[in-house]
């Protein structure tokens, strides 16, 4: 892959990767550092980037590993998970103050619900429903079998379905008569 082509590809995916890291780590600064480090590593070792369909999951594997390293380093330094104190620091963009307030509340609730998910469930969930990776691609990214990924996604979905912070933002089903 040419350098210019690679740069364009990385720039295109940077925002999505950064937001993936934000959802995983729930801390903007840590996410930025993690993604910067991951992308620098990708740039430095660009000769080993796989071609074709394997490229994207490979990129997310680097990003996920970088995020998990940061999270573990944070725990070993402070004993706390990343994002425990960061929820209040989120900048919110929106049309007007009411929308911003609602967005802020939604983000707070979703991030709080994600925080309660263990890491091994949170990561595949974010990669599937935010980054848009398939189960096979997620398996490459987190270095697990596709069956394991399916099982973890199922667990994560079930847990979030029982979380009132998530279901509060979902339209209720009409009762059948």
């Amino acid at each position, binding site marked *: 892959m040419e350098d210019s082509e690679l*740069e364009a590809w990385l720039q295109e995916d940077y925002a999505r990767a950064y937001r993936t890291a934000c*959802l995983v780590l729930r801390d903007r600064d840590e996410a930025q550092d993690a993604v*910067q480090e991951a992308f*620098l590593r990708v740039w430095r070792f660009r000769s080993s980037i796989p071609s074709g369909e394997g490229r994207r999951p490979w990129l997310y594997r680097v990003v996920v590993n970088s995020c998990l390293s940061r999270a573990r380093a944070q725990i070993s330094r402070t004993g706390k998970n990343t994002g425990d104190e960061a929820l209040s620091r989120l900048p919110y*963009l929106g049309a007007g103050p009411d929308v911003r307030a609602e967005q802020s509340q939604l983000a707070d609730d979703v991030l709080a619900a994600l925080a309660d998910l263990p890491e091994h469930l949170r990561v595949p969930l974010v990669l599937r*429903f*935010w980054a848009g990776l398939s189960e096979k691609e997620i398996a490459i990214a987190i270095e697990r079998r596709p069956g394991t990924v399916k099982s973890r996604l199922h667990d994560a979905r079930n847990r979030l379905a029982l979380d009132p912070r998530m279901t509060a933002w979902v*339209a209720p*089903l009409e009762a059948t008569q």
Partner: protein
Amino acid sequence: MTSTLTDDDLIRLLSETAESFPAPEWSPDRPGDEERVRTPLHERPAVRWLVAASLVIALVSAVGIGVDGSRSSSDDSQIAAGKAAGSSVFEQQSGRVPVPAGATSSGSTGTSADTLTSASAGSASGASGSSGSTSGGGAALSLGPAAAAPAAAPAPQAATSGVAAPAPDQGRIVKSGQMVLEVAKGDVSATLTGVQRVATGQGGLVFASSTQESGPSPTGTITIRVPVATFEATVVAVRELKGVQVVSASTKAADVTAQYADLQTQIRTLKATRERYLVILGQANTVGEVLSVQQRIDGVSGQVDQLEGRLKVLGAQSAMSTLAVTVTEKGAPAAKTAVEKGGLSKAWDDAKDNFTGGVEAIVRASGGVLIVGLSLIALWFVGSLGYRVVRRRMV
């Protein structure tokens, strides 16, 4: 009404949450990226481990220095006390000076060949003490103005050799020496045999011997052990061997009398304590009491055994002195002698010794627990480092 979370709901909720984070731009040439990635020096695990390891090494070395210092200060005080009492610690170095013939007065640095026999005879008469005897007209090597140890009745073990060993309450001196001799071509073996005869003549024995007779420069070394009272006479006798030229000679002596007496006192005290415990054991009624007293007895017995072992070693060292002789042919490259190191080299050796001494002291105090614990920590560290390296390589 109930609600459920569909895949579309999840996608919507995560998207709305994620898009609330404004994403910065990325460029490979972005300034400051290297700095962002680089962790501060003091936060790097490797640096922290290095600092911790340095602190541990310094601490262990300090323990070693402390242990060594306490031992040597007691030795120094004994030697100083000995000096004050008139005993001497001597060292001499000589160049290529043939031994003068006919020297007979006491205080001379050498004796003639004639006096070798008389010195041996004088020794055989049963006089003890490292000052040497003056009977028979010969003069053994004088140690200085005052005698090292007062003459005393010969100890029983000297009867067969005719040489007196220090009596239990007499001064105990550990003596050792090194000599390098040069002889004519083809005389190395004969000279070594001569040294051996000197040793047996003085009531001693050959501890080790080796020769290298092939090659351009044949050499031979022999280590002999002789009763401490005849050490000086032995040195003189070796000097006086036929055809021998002394290249270098050095001797050393350390007074361990106080150390020996101290060990004896400690042993006596511990044995008395053990006797008292045995009496108490006879009065113990319950199993718990018996076990408690027995544990103390075992502890004291262990200490007694340890001290008795040290006493034996010290006794052996002060009973028999050691002389290492190296013989080379004239014209051959000079034999390497054990040269005293100085400067940085000595400092490095001292540092190593202090560190290992400290480790020994700590291991002795803590038993095997420390070794097992440190091994597990080292294994864990290596394992986690290897895991990180493997993970990085998988990128």
